[in-house]
C-alpha cells in the first residue's frame, strides 16, 4: 500500500540514498576491491604482504597504533577524570574559571596543537631551552619527540573527552543516590566504588572507545612527531605517496575494520547499559573546601594546570609574532612584529590558502546543513524498512579514520564515474569540499538527531490537524524548532573543516591548497611565524564559533524547550 506518507518517505529517501551510496558506500567498496587487486587480477597478495614477514613494517605499524591508542586512553583518563571530579565536586576560589579553561585544548586544531607542542617542548623548544639556560645545563634536560611526543599530544588533546563525559555524568548524578548510600551506612570509599563509579562507567567506557578510535585515526601528531616510528594511519599516507595504491587500500581496509569494530562495540555497549536517571531537577552538589591548606593546594593545582593548558595557545600567539628569519639558529626568537598578520592581507600568495579553506568549508557546510537536516529528519521522524542500514551508512564516515576517507575518495574518483558526473575528481578543486562534506556529515546529523528526538511527534500532528500541508509544517514548525541545534552542529563542522589536515594532505592541489597544507609548507621552510599566524586564524575562528554556539544558540535552544 502506497499512501501519501509512504510516498513522501520515498521522495526523501531517494536523494539521501543516492548521496550516501555515491559518496560513502561506493568509495568504500572501491577501496575494498582495490585491496584485493594485484596486477589487475583478484588475489589475496596484498593481505599476505601485510601480515607476512615480507613487509613486517605494516604489522609493526598496526601494533604500534594499537598500543599507542591504549596508552592514550589511559593518560587521557588519568588527567580528565580527576579534573572533572575536582571541578564538579569541590568549591574553591576560581573554580568556574578553571573549569572553563579545562576544555581549552578543543580550540586547537590537531595540526596547530602539535606544532605548538613541538616549539614548546621539542628539542629546540622554548621550555627545555629555558630550563637549560636557567640552570646552566650543558644539554636540554628533556625534550619530546617520537612516542613520548605523540602520547603527550594525544593526552593533551583527548583528555577533554573524559573531562566532559565525566563532568556531565557527575552533574546528572542525583546526589540523593549517594546520600541514600551514606544513610544506609556506607563510608566515603564504599559509596564511591559501589554507587558513584558504577554510574559513571557507561560514560567512561564511551569516552575510552572514542579516544581509542580518535587516536587510532590520529594523523597530525605522528606526521610531525613520529620520526622513524610507524603507525598505520601514517603508513597509508606513505604508501599513497610512493604510488602503491593497492597497499594503501589494504592498509585502509585493515584500519577501517578495527575502527568499525570499535564503533559497533560502542553502540552495543551504549544500548546495553543505559542508566538514565528517573529523577528530575537535580541540583549541583558541591562541597565547599574549608580546610585552608587543602583549599590553597587546590587553587595552586588549578593555576598550574591552567598555565600548562594555556601554554600551547600562548606559544602559538608568540610564534605568530615572529617575522620570517627572526628565529632560525637562535635559541629564542629575536624580533617580534605583526608582519605575519599584515602579510596575510597584503600577499595574495599567503592569503590564498585562507580564502581556499573558508570557501571550501563554506561550500561543504551548506551541503551538510541541507543534507544533514533532510537525512536526520528522515531517520528520526519517518518509518521505513532499512532504517538501521541508513543509520550505519551515515555514521560510517564518522567511524572511518580521516586518512581512509581520503583514500576512499582517491580510489573512487581517480577515474570517471557517474557520481562525479563523468569527470575525474582527483586533482580537481571539488574533491576537497566533497571530502569535508563527507567527513563532517555525521557530526551535523548527530547534532540534528539530538534536537529532533526532543521534538514530540504531536507538534507535527498539531500542525497537520490545523490544516498545514507537509512542506508548510516542515518549514514553519520543524525547521525553526531544530535550527539552533543544526546551526551549532554546522558551525562546529565549519571550523573543523577549516582545520582539517589528513584528507587535505591526501587530496589537495595547488589551486585549492587549504590553510593546514600551507602551515605544513611554512614549517618545512622554517617560516614558523607565518605557520603560527595561520594557526592563530584557526584558533580565533574556533573560539568565535564556540562563543556563538554557547551564547546565542545555546540560550535559544534552551528557550525553545
Amino acid at each position, binding site marked *: 500500500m502506497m499512501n501519501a506518507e509512504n510516498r513522501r518517505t520515498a521522495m526523501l529517501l531517494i536523494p539521501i540514498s543516492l548521496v550516501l551510496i555515491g559518496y560513502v558506500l561506493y568509495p568504500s567498496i572501491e577501496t575494498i576491491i582495490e585491496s584485493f587487486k594485484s596486477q589487475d587480477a583478484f588475489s589475496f597478495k596484498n593481505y599476505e604482504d601485510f601480515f607476512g614477514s615480507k613487509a613486517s613494517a605494516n604489522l609493526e605499524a598496526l601494533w604500534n597504533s594499537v598500543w599507542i591508542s591504549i596508552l592514550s586512553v589511559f593518560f587521557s583518563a588519568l588527567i580528565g577524570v580527576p579534573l572533572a571530579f575536582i571541578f564538579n565536586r569541590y568549591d574553591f576560589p576560581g573554580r568556574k574559571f578553571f573549569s572553563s579553561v579545562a576544555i581549552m585544548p578543543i580550540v586547537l586544531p590537531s595540526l596547530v596543537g602539535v606544532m605548538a607542542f613541538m616549539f614548546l617542548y621539542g628539542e629546540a623548544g622554548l621550555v627545555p631551552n629555558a630550563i637549560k639556560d636557567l640552570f646552566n645545563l650543558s644539554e636540554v634536560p628533556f625534550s619530546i619527540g617520537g612516542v613520548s611526543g605523540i602520547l603527550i599530544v594525544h593526552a593533551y588533546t583527548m583528555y577533554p573527552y573524559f573531562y566532559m563525559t565525566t563532568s556531565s555524568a557527575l552533574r546528572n548524578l542525583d546526589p540523593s543516590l549517594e546520600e541514600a548510600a551514606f544513610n544506609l551506612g556506607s563510608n566515603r570509599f564504599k559509596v564511591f566504588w559501589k554507587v558513584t563509579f558504577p554510574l559513571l562507567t557507561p560514560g567512561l567506557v564511551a569516552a575510552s572507545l572514542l579516544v581509542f578510535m580518535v587516536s587510532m585515526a590520529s594523523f597530525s601528531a605522528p606526521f610531525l612527531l613520529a620520526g622513524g616510528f610507524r603507525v598505520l594511519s601514517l603508513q597509508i599516507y606513505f604508501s599513497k605517496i610512493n604510488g602503491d595504491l593497492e597497499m594503501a587500500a589494504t592498509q585502509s581496509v585493515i584500519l577501517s575494520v578495527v575502527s568499525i569494530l570499535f564503533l559497533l562495540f560502542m553502540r552495543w555497549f551504549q544500548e546495553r547499559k543505559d542508566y538514565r536517571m528517573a529523577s528530575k531537577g537535580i541540583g549541583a552538589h558541591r562541597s565547599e573546601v574549608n580546610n585552608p591548606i587543602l583549599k590553597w593546594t587546590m587553587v595552586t593545582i588549578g593555576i598550574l594546570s591552567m598555565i600548562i593548558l594555556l601554554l600551547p595557545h600562548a606559544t602559538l600567539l608568540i610564534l605568530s609574532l615572529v617575522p620570517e628569519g627572526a628565529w632560525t639558529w637562535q635559541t629564542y626568537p629575536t624580533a617580534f612584529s605583526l608582519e605575519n598578520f599584515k602579510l596575510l592581507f597584503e600577499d595574495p600568495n599567503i592569503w590564498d590558502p585562507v580564502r581556499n579553506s573558508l570557501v571550501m568549508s563554506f561550500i561543504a557546510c551548506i551541503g551538510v546543513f541541507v543534507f544533514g537536516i533532510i537525512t536526520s529528519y528522515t531517520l528520526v521522524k519517518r518509518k521505513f524498512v532499512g532504517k538501521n542500514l541508513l543509520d550505519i551508512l551515515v555514521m560510517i564516515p564518522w567511524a572511518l579514520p580521516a586518512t581512509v576517507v581520503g583514500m576512499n575518495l582517491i580510489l573512487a574518483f581517480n577515474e570517471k564515474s557517474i557520481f562525479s558526473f563523468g569527470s575525474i575528481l582527483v586533482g580537481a578543486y571539488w574533491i576537497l569540499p566533497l571530502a569535508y562534506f563527507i567527513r563532517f556529515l555525521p557530526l551535523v546529523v548527530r547534532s540534528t538527531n539530538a534536537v529532533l528526538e526532543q521534538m*514530540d511527534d*504531536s*507538534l507535527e*500532528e*498539531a500542525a497537520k*490537524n*490545523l*490544516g*498545514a500541508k507537509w512542506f508548510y509544517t516542515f518549514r514553519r514548525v520543524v525547521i525553526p524548532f531544530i535550527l539552533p541545534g543544526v546551526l551549532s552542529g554546522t558551525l562546529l563542522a565549519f571550523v573543523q573543516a577549516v582545520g582539517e589536515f589528513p584528507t587535505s594532505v591526501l587530496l589537495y592541489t595547488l589551486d585549492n591548497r587549504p590553510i593546514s597544507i600551507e602551515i605544513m609548507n611554512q614549517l618545512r621552510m622554517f617560516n614558523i611565524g607565518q605557520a603560527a599566524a595561520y594557526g592563530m586564524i584557526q584558533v580565533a575562528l574556533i573560539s568565535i564559533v564556540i562563543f556563538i554556539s554557547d551564547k546565542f544558540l545555546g540560550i535559544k535552544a534552551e528557550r525553545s524547550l
Partner: protein
Amino acid sequence: MSSVQLTNITKKFKDVTAVEDLNLTINEGEFFTFLGPSGCGKTTTLRMIAGFYYPTAGTITFNDRDMTKVPPEKRNTGMVFQNYALFPHMSVFENVAFGLKVRKLNKSDIKRKVMDVLEKVRLEQYYDRQVSQLSGGQQQRVALARALVIEPDILLLDEPLSNLDARLRDQMRTEILRLQRDFGITTIYVTHDQVEALTMSDRIAVFNMGKCQQVGTPLDIYNNPVNDFVAQFIGETNLFPVEPEITDEQIKVYKLKDSNFKIHAKHKKSEISDDKHSGLYMSIRPEAVRLKNEKMEGNNVVEGVIEIVQFTGASVHFFVRVDKSITVRITRLNKGPHTYFNEGDKVFVQLPEEHIRIVPKAGE
C-alpha cells in the same frame, strides 16, 4: 458541525489489534466521551478520526462524507493534544493564528479572530507571551483556543486534563464544557478518568481491550452497566461472582460462589440475554448497601464485623467482613459522629434487591 459515524472499524498494528470491529455514531453538537483504561483503544480511535491513523478495515464518515482515507490536514478537526503540542518557537498569538495562516486569511481577520478566541479563553492579555512562560492551565487554554479558532467541524480532546493538578482540573472541566456549549461544537473527549466522563458527557462509550463495551448516557452507564468491566470501571462497586439457583420469571435467587449466601435479585428479563452465561456477577454500589447494628427485615441480610473505617470528609467508607472471602464496601454520607461505627463493631448488612444488578462477565 458534523456528526461522526464509525462503521466496522478495525485497527491493527502488525499483530496487535488495537481496535476491533467498532460501530459508533456521534451526533451533531454532542459531547461524547471515550472512556477506558490505558491501552484500550480509545486514543487510537480518536487518532483515526483525526486522520493520523488509517483504519485497517471499516469506514469513517463525517455527516455523509467518507473521510476514511482523507489526510488529517483536510479534515477540519480541531485537536487538543495530551501534551498540548504548542509550538515552542511561537508566541501565544502565533500559535493560535497558525491554522488561520494556513487557511490564508488576511491579516486583519486573523488578528480579530485570534483576539476573539483568546478573550473567550480569558488569555487576551497574554497574547504576546512565549508559551513556555505560561502555566499548565494557561497552556491548556491556548491549545483549546488554537483548536477552536479554525471553527472545526469536530473538536477532539485527547486526555487534555491529565497533566494538570486536581484543583485546576476541576476548573478546566467547567471551562471546556462552557466553551463546548458556547460553540455548540461536536466534541469527542478521550479520558481514563471516570469522574470527568460522568460530569461532562452527553454520552459515553466505555472501551476495554479494543472493544466498545457500552454506549450510553452517564446515568445509564452508572446505573445499568452491561457487564462486570463497566460496573467496576465506572464508580465503586461490590462485585461478587454468583451462580443461578432459581430463575423464576419474577423472583430470581443466586448463590454467591464459594459460600452459601443466597442472593435475591429483581430485574427485568432484558438485562441479561442468557442466564446460562459463562460467568455471572452481582454488582451493588456501596452507597446502596444498608448498614445497621440490629437485624433488618427482608432478604439479603447478613451479619458481619466492621474491619476498616475510612473517613473522607463528605462521606465515610466501611469495609464489613461477612465471610472469610467476602468483604462488603459501604459508603454513607457524613451525618455527624454519632452515626459512625467503629472498627470491630458487629453489624448487619442488607443488599437491597432493587439495587442489585446481575451482569455477565465481559466477553474476551
